[in-house]
């Protein structure tokens, strides 16, 4: 199997035109921060500049949509920022291209205590045994539900479903006319469906890839059963007919509009729900699991990385150390901080957040395979195939498994 490192070398030799950006100067660093956190990024930059008058931080607000492509293009051309926020799922593929700076020594030098970081988050930044990014944000999905609807359906709003069987019962009881029991994702970006369905496969002992990542286990009974459980919500009419166009945002909208009673999402949804429909009585709970088994969930989050081609790595490192301080990390994150010591901050103590925090204990990283994006696309196509009625879960997943195997050999 060819490695991505060789690809980058090839690009570098094939394109001798690559030049330095030219305008970056010592004492100046450029930071690509996604739009949704850019206001806080600017505040942090100002605070840092106060402490380090000889370094200027240019915060570049970047659109989260398409950011992955832009970072890729930047890494391949060598015209990069000095510091960039990466979703944890992209980190290893980017590290594999050789475009990110290896950080083990740097972290030692800066005295950042890696044992304080959530181990699963550190895994998302580790490639070939070396660290290529510094996790700053970590999150896991939990279940969000409408307490009033529970009561109207005669369910106990204080004891939400804990097992799959209970979830199905509740979903059925909560479905009534234009109101649907449980919203699942079947559209939008691939990751929406991965984040909401793969945990069920894991809980059941299944998954998309085996541990060694040498073949797909989607055609195994445990995986098929979990896929049937997930897609069954639409087949049974407990998920809205718009399922195939629903991503995370759409599910939240449906929840706010009172069209679905339960769905799965990250804690960031609680803020929007409270803003847009303050009257909604929202409950949160852990993800339901098969009877007698543990729940599971995908670890979401973001990491800081310094590109290998960065102009000003030295000052970027100084700034990174500043950002890694627990209070700054706790301030910057949209969800939870990757550093456990930052978890004590006031903003993470809301009781509604407790299930999200508990779910972090069951969080696993997505498989760190270099073909993961393509594999997850194939899996998503298979799930959509089931949802539109192209075939049964067993047929579609067997076919998907053989396609993935073709990619892995």
């Amino acid at each position: 199997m060819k490695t991505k490192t060789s690809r980058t070398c090839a690009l570098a030799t094939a394109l001798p035109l690559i030049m330095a950006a030219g305008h970056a100067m010592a004492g100046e660093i450029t930071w690509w921060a996604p739009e949704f956190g850019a206001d806080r990024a600017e505040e942090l930059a100002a605070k840092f500049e106060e402490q380090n008058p000889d370094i200027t931080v240019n915060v570049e607000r970047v659109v989260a949509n398409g950011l992955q492509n832009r970072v890729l293009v930047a890494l391949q051309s060598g015209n990069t920022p000095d510091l960039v926020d990466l979703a944890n799922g992209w980190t290893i593929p980017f590290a594999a291209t050789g475009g990110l700076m290896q950080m083990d020594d740097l972290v030692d030098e800066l005295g950042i205590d890696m044992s304080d970081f959530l181990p699963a988050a550190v895994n998302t930044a580790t490639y070939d045994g070396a660290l290529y990014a510094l996790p700053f944000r970590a999150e896991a999905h939990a279940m969000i539900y409408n307490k009033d609807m529970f009561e109207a359906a005669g369910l106990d709003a204080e004891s939400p479903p804990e097992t799959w069987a209970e979830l199905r019962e509740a979903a059925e009881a909560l479905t009534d006319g234009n109101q649907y029991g449980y919203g699942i994702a079947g559209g939008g970006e691939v990751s929406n469906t991965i984040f909401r369905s793969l945990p069920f496969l894991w809980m059941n002992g299944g998954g998309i890839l085996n541990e060694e990542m040498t073949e797909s286990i989607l055609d195994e009974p445990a995986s098929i059963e979990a896929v049937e459980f997930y897609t069954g919500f639409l087949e049974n009419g407990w998920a809205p007919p718009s399922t195939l166009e629903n991503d995370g945002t759409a599910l939240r909208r449906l929840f706010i509009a009172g069209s679905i009673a339960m769905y799965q999402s990250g804690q960031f949804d609680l803020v929007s729900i409270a803003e847009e429909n303050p009257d909604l009585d929202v409950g949160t709970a852990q993800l339901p699991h098969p009877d007698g088994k543990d729940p599971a969930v995908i670890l979401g989050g973001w990491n800081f990385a310094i590109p290998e081609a960065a102009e000003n790595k030295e000052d970027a490192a100084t700034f990174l150390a500043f950002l890694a301080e627990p209070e700054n990390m706790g301030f910057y994150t949209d969800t939870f901080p990757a550093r456990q010591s930052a978890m004590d901050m006031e903003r993470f103590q809301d009781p509604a957040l407790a299930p999200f925090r508990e779910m972090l204990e069951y969080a696993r990283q997505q498989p760190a395979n270099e073909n993961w994006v393509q594999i997850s696309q194939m899996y998503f196509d298979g799930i959509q195939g089931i949802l539109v009625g192209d075939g049964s879960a067993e047929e579609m997943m067997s076919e998907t498994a053989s396609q993935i195997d073709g990619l892995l050999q």
Partner: protein
Amino acid sequence: MASRTRSTWPIYPAVALLVVITMFPFLWMLISSFKQLSELYTVPPTWIPVAPSWTNYLNVLFESNVPRYFLNSVIISAGSTAIALALAILASYGFARFKFRGRTAAVALIIVGQLLPTAAIIVPLYVVLNWLGLLNTYLGLILAYLILTLPLSVFMLISYFRGIPVELEEAAIVDGASRLGVLLRITLPLSMPGVVAVIVYAFVTTWNEFIFALCFALDSSTKTLPIGLAEFTTEFNTDWGAVMAASVVMTVPIAILFLAMQRLFVGGLTAGGTKG
């Protein structure tokens, strides 16, 4: 005389239907832009906003980078349109009026330019712009947009120039005018509808372009409006009201521009030329 004109009443229902079909999505966009988020997601949808609000517009105009992106869009679109027009006028005249060696190859190159899938050329194009030091500059985007606008502009003008009788030019050439002079003084004024079409086409294409801008404009000094529109789509919260308001803000100037061009467009200069 009555036999020379046709009755016009069947035109009106057809026109009314046409207007409804073309304008409805735009109207719905406008209505949605005045709705608050909670009302956008209501069943059944409301035709008139219950609590109409300027919030979305205020957000777009004062709380975002949209005004700056607007300026960038104007500069880049105008610059690219001007260059495309100048190059296209010369090239189309060359193609329309002259036969020369390599002409077929030249046309082929232009067709290829039009056909090249955008997705396939972003990485090499990025490298070229980087090498020229034009990444994240107005000029870089202006040049990149020529790929999108120049080939078609050339084709559009070729067909217009061919529609203009050569005899008009020949008379002038006999009078001693140079070919460039003939082009500028005789052919071009007769081709105004075509020129206007090229302007509108090039301007709109560059105004609306998304993928190149996303890759080649790295910060707010060069980002264009479509990118600004996308910036409302934050990771977890799509602010549709603001997106709709920004869309209106983006659309109105272009509609006005078109309205202004309309007179030139329908002025019948071509008809006058062929009759004259």
